[in-house]
């Protein structure tokens, strides 16, 4: 990368900077004329004589001449500002493009880092560098040439004017420039160094915060909150000290500048005055010089600020670049080149290690001159505990780590020379702690097939513009909306077949049931087609009929029926017979919804609900009168928190003294919110009775009718003939709730759902929904075992020629299933296991036993295990 910011600017924005420079030059004559015209208006038009005048070939009288000049002036003012506008927009554009280029380049470099580099540089440090730290560079790059040219040009004009008046005064005006030019860089240099320190410190802060967020479980589990707070406080203090030192110097520079700028007029008055008295300089000239000097201060100040700013961003650029400009980067060719046919064949050949050595950062990461060969199509294992170099060797055999000396060859070609497109497509590696990305299980499984786009994206309106901008900024020409999954590579034709294959593999490694459960529980998948929707609705009806016919079964479920009150649901759900389409909206929050408020007021339901809310509050206050605030009894209720209860108590008192009629809107809304949350069968407060329930059910249709078609989309209604979008498949099938007042109702519901799925052959769709399960940030919703299995299926799905599976076999129950799945999917291909103990891989062709970075023994399992 370019070592200095200016070299970077010059290399990639040379033409734009020159354009900016030319536009700047264009502004000078206009500026000059706008200064000249007023003089002309006063001297020539207002107090002039000899009319009519000739104005560009027209004979004009005095008034017309005045107007012509005035409109010319107006025109020039507009033109001047138009030029400035174009200049500013273009400057912004250049800056933004350069910023995009810089960020893209930095990110690409991160992807080219070799693995050991990440032991020294954490994401917490890299992220602010690519995001916040380079941000000011964008603004500056646009200014890089245009600003000094513009302000410098103006400065020159003013100086020339002063010199024309009197060279001596001119000299006085610039006397202190050399002094400023000497002192300020010295101070600035110190500021730069401090700024560099500050940047590093902020980076460390970001790193610490990132670490705390990731390790929050450990923090809570170890009660180390105070320690982390203290640690961050220490960093913040360091930051404060640096910033304070920077301020002091920055304002000292400002002080010196201001002082000198005021000092010069002193010389004008004293020396100039002396000269005027002596008669060497005219009084008018002195006044003119003073006026010009005032104008001079502006550009000079701008130039000094520019100088400070460029010094600052130069440091920032360097502070960022030095972290990315590392010598051991992979060659760019590694990620851009396509493999040759020779290489493609070589991957199917013998794997050979020729006296490879490696030294990691810590003990137990070294390899000492290993040599061995693995025949193509064989299954081998490397066994060794942590610290035997096994993990490093596994990464090396997958082309992820390069040996310090010696080499790993595939079919006679060095693995290190092969492009990533070959290594990543034909080799699969499952590490000790595989990474799961945020998103769905499906997208994680397909991750291994997203090498290059295989088809152009459809209907992207701005595709051409996006590609043009990308090429202008050195960004990639691939768009993320394209189809990336390489189905043929996985040996399938369509997306659906790939899912089937994925489900088959998940089943084999023992994850099928987990996915099934996730599918049952996760929200109804939006992209399931109408057939399945219809199927689910008819299965629901059948289930309903089946249950209704059986008295015992029927007593266990409270179905969603349009004209029946559902005692297992909240009052709000009963009233609106819908949930909010926005799932993040809690039931209590519905009282804040404008549509609902309007309905409650229009239908006169509000007082009725306030009455219920007050009754709930009264009953709760009475029940919990003797309990203290921390009582856990209240928590298990899930209706109000202890603090809320206190609030409601106060609201009740206020309602009693002021009268219910005078209750403020806010208070009544709080009571409505409480009423909304009430689940009669769970919160048996004696508040609900049949009459009230009937009244609520009677309001359902009225509410629905009060909404316009557009407003209806804000709610998800409980319609028996359609799927409910925020219910899971299971909830959609049962379309009701297990009754809390019957024993074993949840179990009954589970059984009924399982039967319905079985009978109507819905399992594939449940599995689809399971694949849609959102794994959370970096797979946070999955267990370690689930993550590992998903990584294994991801690796197998891309049908590699070689698979390296480190610590996938752990001596657990699943080992046999995993082993069978891998050998089934990798028939005739090379399989390499990394294991802790040799006994875990009894069925392989060869076992290599590692110890202290060497191969201690190798051979067929029977021999190795007996010795």
């Amino acid at each position, binding site marked *: 990368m370019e070592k200095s910011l200016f070299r970077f600017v010059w290399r990639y924005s040379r033409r734009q900077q020159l354009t900016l420079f030319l536009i700047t030059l264009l502004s000078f004559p206009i500026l000059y004329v706008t200064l000249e015209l007023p003089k002309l208006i006063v001297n020539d038009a207002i107090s002039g004589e000899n009319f009519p005048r000739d104005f560009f070939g027209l004979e004009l009288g005095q008034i017309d001449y005045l107007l012509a000049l005035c409109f010319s002036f107006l025109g020039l003012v507009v033109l001047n500002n138009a030029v400035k506008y174009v200049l500013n927009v273009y400057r912004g554009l250049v800056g933004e493009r350069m910023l995009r280029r810089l960020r893209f380049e930095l990110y690409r470099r991160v992807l080219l880092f070799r693995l050991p580099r990440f032991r020294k540089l954490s994401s917490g440090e890299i992220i602010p560098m690519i995001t916040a730290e380079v941000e000011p560079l964008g603004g500056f790059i646009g200014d890089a040439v245009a600003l000094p040219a513009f302000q410098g040009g103006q400065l020159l004009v003013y100086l020339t004017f002063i010199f024309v008046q009197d060279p001596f005064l001119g000299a006085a005006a610039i006397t202190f420039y050399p002094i400023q030019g000497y002192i300020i860089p010295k101070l600035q240099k110190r500021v730069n160094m401090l700024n560099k320190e500050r940047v590093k410190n902020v980076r460390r802060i970001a790193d610490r915060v990132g670490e705390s967020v990731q390790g929050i479980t450990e923090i809570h589990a170890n009660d180390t909150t105070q320690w982390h707070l203290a640690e961050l406080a220490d960093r913040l203090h360091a930051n404060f000290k640096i910033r304070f030192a920077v301020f002091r110097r920055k304002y000292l520079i400002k002080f010196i500048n201001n002082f000198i700028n005021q000092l010069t007029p002193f010389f004008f008055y004293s020396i100039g005055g002396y000269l005027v008295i002596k008669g060497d300089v005219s009084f008018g000239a002195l006044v003119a010089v003073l006026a010009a000097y005032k104008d001079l201060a502006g550009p000079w100040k701008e130039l000094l600020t520019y100088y400070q700013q460029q010094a600052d961003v130069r440091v920032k650029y360097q502070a960022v670049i030095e972290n990315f400009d590392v010598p051991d980067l992979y060659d760019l060719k590694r990620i851009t080149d396509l493999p040759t046919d020779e290489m493609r064949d070589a991957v199917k050949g013998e794997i050979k290690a020729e006296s490879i050595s490696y030294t990691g950062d810590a003990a137990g990461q070294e390899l000492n001159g290993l040599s061995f060969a693995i025949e193509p199509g064989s299954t081998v294992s490397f066994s060794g505990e942590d610290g035997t170099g096994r993990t490093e060797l596994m990464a090396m055999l997958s082309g992820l780590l390069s040996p310090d000396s010696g080499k790993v060859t595939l079919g006679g070609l060095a693995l290190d020379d092969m492009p990533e497109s070959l290594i990543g497509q034909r080799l699969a590696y499952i590490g000790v702690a595989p990474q799961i990305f945020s998103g769905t299980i499906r997208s994680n499984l397909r991750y291994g097939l997203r090498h290059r786009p295989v088809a152009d994206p459809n209907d992207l309106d701005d595709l051409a513009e996006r590609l043009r901008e990308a090429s202008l900024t050195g960004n990639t020409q691939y768009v993320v909306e394209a189809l990336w999954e390489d189905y043929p590579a996985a040996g399938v034709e369509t997306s659906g077949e790939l899912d089937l294959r994925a489900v088959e593999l998940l089943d084999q490694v023992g994850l099928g049931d987990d996915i099934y459960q996730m599918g049952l529980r996760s929200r109804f998948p939006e992209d399931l087609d109408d057939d399945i929707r219809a199927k689910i609705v008819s299965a629901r009806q059948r289930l309903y009929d089946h249950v209704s016919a059986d*008295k*015992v079964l029927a*007593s266990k479920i409270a179905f969603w029926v349009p004209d029946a009150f559902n005692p297992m649901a909240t009052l709000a759900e009963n009233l609106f017979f819908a949930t909010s389409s926005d799932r993040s909206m809690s039931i209590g929050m519905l009282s804040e919804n404008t549509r609902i408020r309007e309905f409650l007021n229009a239908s006169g339901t509000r007082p009725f609900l306030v009455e219920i809310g007050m009754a709930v509050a009264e009953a709760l206050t009475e*029940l*919990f*009168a*003797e*309990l203290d605030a921390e*009582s*856990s*009894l209240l928590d*298990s*209720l899930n209706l109000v928190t202890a603090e809320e209860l206190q609030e409601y108590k106060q609201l009740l008192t206020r309602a009693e003294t002021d009268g219910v009629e005078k209750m403020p809107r806010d208070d009544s809304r709080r009571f409505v919110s409480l009423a909304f949350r009430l689940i009669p*069968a769970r919160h*048996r*407060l*004696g508040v609900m009775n049949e009459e009230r329930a009937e009244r609520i059910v009677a309001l359902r249709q009225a509410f629905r009718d009060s909404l316009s078609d557009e407003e209806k989309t804000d709610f998800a209604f409980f319609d028996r003939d359609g799927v409910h979008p925020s219910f899971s498949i299971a909830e959609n099938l049962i379309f009701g709730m297990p009754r*809390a*007042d*019957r*024993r074993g109702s949840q179990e009954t519901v589970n059984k009924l759902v399982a039967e319905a799925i079985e009978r109507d052959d819905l399992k594939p769709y449940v599995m689809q929904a399971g694949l849609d399960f959102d794994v959370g940030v970096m797979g946070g919703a999955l267990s370690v075992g689930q993550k590992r299995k998903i990584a294994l299926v991801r690796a197998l799905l891309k049908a590699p020629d070689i698979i390296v599976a480190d610590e996938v076999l752990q001596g657990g129950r699943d080992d046999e299933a995993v082993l069978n799945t891998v050998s089934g999917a990798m028939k005739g291909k090379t399989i390499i296991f990394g294991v802790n103990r040799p006994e875990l891989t009894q069925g392989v062709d060869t076992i290599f036993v590692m110890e202290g970075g060497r191969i201690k023994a190798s051979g067929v399992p029977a021999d190795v295990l007996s010795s």
Partner: protein
Amino acid sequence: MTLNSEVETLKRVPLFNGIDAAKLKLLAFISDRLYFSEGEHLCDQGEDGDSAYIIMDGAADVVVETPNGPAKVAEASVNDVVGEIAILCDVPRTATVVAASDMETLAISKDNFLKLLREFPDMSLEVMRVLGQRLDRMNRELVALRSQRAE
């Protein structure tokens, strides 16, 4: 059915009859109202018990597995408590309870009951008193039995 009627029932249960009404109300509130159809099992012998049932309406048969098949050993009806041992300590159910008619019960879960005891130490003392009386009565019955045998 309101809490007040449940409290009335609870008052008639020996285990709770010394506890004041406000606390019984709370106990009723945190308990579950469970309904059973005739023939349904309230609990099964041998399974882990986690709640006691107070019968508010209907009746149940207490059945024990014997080598000769299930045998009815007792009947329980309104105001009776079944399975109360389960909310005091971890023991498997000693009998199966089958609803002899449609039933209404109040089920007190072990977790909620213990929570309440922790909250109100007075209540623990009351429960201990009742258990003590029961122990005393059983001891006396045991002595009487022994003396009967000795004769």
